[in-house]
């Protein structure tokens, strides 16, 4: 295993073009994504809403009913305002709404949003304002104001640190795993598996190397993003790096499995590109998931990207270590192990040893 790892490392270090692409392109794209998507999200947004009706007036109840019928299960009703704020900060809801007793027939509406989700808050505020004035026009109009809750800091930077990291970790893993096709074609894989007594150590060595490359990529992005991050404790950085490690493990396992399915580079290149782009899009690497339709958002949880990004947000921005992070670690680790075993099974069936 160590021998294959060392061979992979030497090959990587000697391919200067590949080295530059692997370590320089990700932070560049991160800067690009953060600047483009950070300020230009537009259009209809299917945001989830957490609501507390403090006013308990006929108008506020009617508004709550109306919201529920429009948003369906995307709207939850909470017992108090603090729970709404906690749901927004924790990411369980994109936006919160607290209906307070107003001076006229309408409740005063306070929209709660977290940094980086102002677009969703503005969209919800607009919807609520329109809904509140439907029906016979009463005197006055609802007062709607938006308040940003949660920790300070540039949440977008934290988001894209995770989003771009995981996307490039997958790109690099697929690219690296493709060397296995060359090794298989030339007979090198057969030669090594004879000496090592099976394909296990060969694939383990490759997976270890791909994981190291992934962690290195994540570190370069973290270094570039660091000035924009909220104040962080060492444990947060350590936990983020552990998340990056597990995300790299997941990428390595899945990449080895995808490449094991292919017989040639001609097959592997389009397939791996498709898989990487699909997972990146669904998982929120290309645009924040709150901008996506609800169905796509739910599908996103099938990708390691969504879990890695969520864990990064929780650790670096919210500054907590909760069950979301633990679940993400479990999912990422399991995806990597499952991918690795699947790759081993496919490769062994292809060339039984």
């Amino acid at each position, binding site marked *: 295993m160590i*021998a294959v790892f060392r061979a992979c490392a*030497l*090959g990587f270090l000697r391919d200067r073009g590949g080295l530059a692409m692997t370590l320089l392109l990700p932070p560049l794209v991160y800067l690009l994504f953060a600047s483009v998507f950070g300020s230009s999200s537009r259009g209809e947004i299917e945001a989830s809403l957490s609501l507390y009706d403090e006013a308990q007036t006929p108008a506020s109840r009617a508004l709550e009913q109306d919201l529920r019928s429009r948003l369906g299960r995307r709207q939850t009703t909470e017992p108090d305002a603090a729970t709404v704020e906690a749901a927004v900060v924790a990411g369980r809801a994109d936006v919160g709404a607290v209906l307070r007793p107003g001076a006229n027939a309408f409740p005063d509406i306070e929209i709660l949003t977290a940094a980086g989700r102002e677009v969703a808050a503005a969209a919800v505020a607009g919807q609520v304002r329109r809904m509140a004035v439907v029906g016979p026009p009463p005197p006055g109009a609802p007062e709607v104001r938006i308040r940003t809750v949660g920790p300070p800091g540039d949440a977008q930077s934290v988001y894209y640190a995770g989003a771009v990291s995981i996307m490039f970790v997958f790109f690099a893993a697929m690219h690296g795993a493709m060397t296995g096709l060359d090794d298989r074609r030339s*007979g090198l894989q057969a*030669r090594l598996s004879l000496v090592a*007594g099976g394909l296990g150590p060969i694939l383990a060595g490759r997976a270890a190397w791909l994981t190291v490359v992934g962690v290195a990529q994540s570190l370069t992005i973290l270094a570039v993003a660091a000035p924009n991050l909220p104040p962080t404790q060492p444990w947060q950085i350590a936990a983020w790096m552990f998340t990056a490690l597990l995300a790299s493990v997941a990428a390595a396992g899945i990449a080895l499995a995808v490449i094991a399915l292919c017989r040639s580079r001609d097959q592997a290149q389009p397939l791996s590109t498709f898989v990487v782009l699909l997972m990146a899009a669904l998982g929120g690497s290309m645009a924040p998931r709150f901008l996506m339709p609800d169905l796509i958002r739910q599908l996103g949880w099938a990708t390691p990207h969504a879990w890695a990004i969520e864990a990064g947000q929780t650790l670096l921005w919210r500054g907590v270590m909760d069950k979301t992070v633990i679940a993400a670690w479990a999912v990422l680790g399991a995806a990597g192990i499952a991918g690795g075993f699947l790759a081993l099974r496919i490769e062994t069936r292809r060339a039984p040893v």
Partner: protein
Amino acid sequence: MPASPAEAAPALRLAQVHAGYRDRPVLKGLSLTIAAGEAYALLGPNGAGKSTAARVACGLLRPERGTVSVGGPSPSSSADRGRHVGLAPQDCALFPALTIRENLETIARLGSARSPGGDRACRTSAVEDALRRTDCIARADERVSSLSGGWRRRANLAAALVSRPSLLVLDEPTEGVDARTRTNLVRAVRDTLDTGAGCLIISHDAAFVTQAADRVGVLADGRLIAEGPLGALLAQTFGEHRLLTVRFVNRPPEVLTRQLMASRLESNGDALVWRRVGADVLDLADRLADAIDGGAGEMIIRRPGLDELLDRLLESRS
């Protein structure tokens, strides 16, 4: 001192091996034995099952029936068998970005991970030994990607030797090499046989097989149709017959063509090369000499070789 072939366990024994891919049977009851210190060339037309036999010998393909043993009694698994085998695949199966030495060290490290006794000194010694046997020392610290085809072939063989195998399996080891490299590879193989290893050669290179192999086996449709020392097979098949080859630079005149056909020489199709194997070819050459000379042709008479042997055996079988 390695044990003599008669004393030592065979390097490879295949007994009634049936193997193939999915529903396509390739080997149909193949049996062969390679003694320790012996080089055995498995020959035959494309698709006869040579590479499949090599894969079975290495443990890369499980036989459906039959037994395979390498370096003694049958090991418990094909994976165990693999550690006794040094494989030189048809392509250059090396890490291109690494030097020859680094490639050999990588393979030695992988091997030593399975052998608790394989320490660093042992590995270094094995690497240097493989480099020396293949005359690769001069280029050992050059990257494989920068080497010529001939040097890559040497490096490919060196990588097969580094685990000090009981059985060396060479799949087309001389493809694209010049005569000097071929001689070098023959020497490396013969040198390795002296350590007691056996060698299975899959090759279409008659010159290499003639120089390197102690015995040949001819495979057709998954079955061995002839086996023995090359000289014995040639003597048995051709006796005192000789091969007459007539070559022309340009197509010979019609009269001469008819004369060659009447003398039962066979053309390769374009009428530029004519051949006949027989006991009377010396007399025949005498009779045709003037005509061929007039047609600007040349005649060669020699003993039939490996190519003719294969042609004859496969012809007689069909």
